[in-house]
């Protein structure tokens, strides 16, 4: 269980398995439900364009208890594909991204950071994990470098 006590909905695990086993999705974005009690699937998509995915994270919002809407953190799983620089074909790595923009509200950041463990434990077979806090961190090149360990 995570340190905040938040739980993971079964949908998250199903969507993740669709991505991992059935290859139905390219990425899945997860969020906390409005009452912060449960992690749910926000979107699962087979759109291969990294920029669209990135925009989605950058524009994510979170509604605070008082109703104010600000930037929001998210979790995401992306089936990252790259070809090796040595020409030995391509590799797929399932990448977990904990997106928590520095300019999000402190409450939102805290809930997401303290609940991350619950989701990560529920999803088995993640190859790489990225903790991203500003837009540079989720540029395609930055992620590629981390995921491929410099081999792409």
């Amino acid at each position, binding site marked *: *269980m*995570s340190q*905040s*006590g*938040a739980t993971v909905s079964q949908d998250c695990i199903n969507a993740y398995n669709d991505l991992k086993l059935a290859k139905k999705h390219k990425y899945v974005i997860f969020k906390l439900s409005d009452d912060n009690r449960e992690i749910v699937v926000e979107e699962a998509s087979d759109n291969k364009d990294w920029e669209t995915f990135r925009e989605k994270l950058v524009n994510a919002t979170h509604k605070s208890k*008082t109703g104010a809407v600000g930037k929001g953190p998210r979790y995401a799983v992306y089936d990252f594909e790259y070809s090796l620089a040595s020409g030995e074909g391509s590799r797929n790595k399932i990448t977990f991204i904990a997106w928590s923009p520095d300019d999000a509200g402190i409450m939102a950041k805290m809930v997401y*950071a303290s609940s991350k463990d619950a989701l990560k434990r529920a999803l088995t077979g993640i190859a790489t994990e990225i*903790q991203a*806090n500003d837009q540079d961190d989720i540029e395609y090149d930055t992620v590629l470098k981390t995921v491929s360990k410099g081999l792409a």
Partner: protein
Amino acid sequence: MAQQPLTTASVPTDIYGGDEVSALVLDAGYCHTRAGFAGEDVPKSVLPSFYGSVAGTRNVFGDECLVPRADLEIKNYMSRAESVVEDWDAATNIWEHMLIKSLQPEREIHPSKNGLNDPDTKAAADGEGDVAMEDAAAAAAVASGEATEDQEKPLAESPLLMTEAPWNSGKAREKAIEIAMENWGTPAFWLTRTPVAAAFAAGKASALVIDVGGANTSVTAVHDGMILKRSIQKSPAGGLWLSSQIRSMWDSCEPKVDVVPTFMVESKVPVDAGAPAQAKLRKFPFDVSPSFRAYEEERLLTEFKESVVEVWKGPGKYTNPGNEELVKSQPGRIFEMPDGANQMWREQRFRVSEGMWDDAAALPTPGADPITKAQTIPELIRACLNNVDVDLRPNLLGNIVVTGGSSLLTGFNDRLNSELSAMYPGMRIKLHAAGLTTERRFGAWIGGSILASLGTFHQMWISKKEYDENGAGIIEKRCK
């Protein structure tokens, strides 16, 4: 006098919003102790961890310590070397003062049951005469057996979350839950470690937390919300150490700077910069204890630290050739002592903080061990990282959380950044330091405040029932 619309006792408690309305958060440090309601963004009550002991019988807290009086000794309930509780009786006393007296509504309950007149603290009431009767009643109530119901304990409705230093001992943790459960009757309790709370508050589950506090500076690696025990490094290079450097610098000044704390000064006249002070000093009909004087001097040093001292931004050490000449050509800052003496500070304000980074530049402090190379901040970070798995290091360097009041020194982050870039060339280094001063000073408290206010967190608390069944040892099992 106009009637107040609501007495303190009848104000609804749900005005604080959030799910966990009445949870309290307590963050104890060597210099300050912070207490407040979960869900708020600053602690309601911040008091120095220094307290006054009057003739060894009665304790006074906060502003009451600022008045000199006979037989007043200033003490601290924490240990300076460890920043953990040393004197549990005083700790209980000061925590009760903050959590119960300042934060709880006044209750219409018998004084024998509010915990403040327990036999061991009864001495506190002595000397005030008018409470003698209640004392007697209290003694009678205690004698009449364990009649006190849980509902009547002072914190019977408030879960309590406390923070602790990552190196806190198992015994101290058990003692903390014991006090909360037995003395205050809190329905639920949790301990969280300060670096974890600070990392969470920065939105990071994994981070390298650099906490520059009053008595200690610590560097801790946090991975997925857990501290990596082997990585913990700490050193005395914090706020108080900086004060001793300032004092050493003042002592070696020509002419020597006289440290006259505010309470000594009755009146002063303006004097030119560098001229001797012409102040009329107060006379006291009793001996002011050395500990009181030291406390007051520390307050003066703190003011100097906050308004004058800066950290050399780098790159490189401050002692590198050319740097001091550059600083000398820049405008300095004027500081006026309470007695009116004032002067301009230029290169000295960089020199005093340099020892945090470079042991060779530390000023000699009589009566204390000089800082060693291993105790400087860059070396702490190096030692911390050397003790964690090599695969985790890049992630930690990319997620550095800077917290603690002493990190607010101007230039601190720039220097940290340049030292790290020099130590780990080619690595991506990113510092996260809250912009608001309160978020930096109360980082760990704020983290605890949010955690305790989460709706889902109620299933995490150690409940009174669990404590009753398992005893104090439950804390080691649950709060890992």
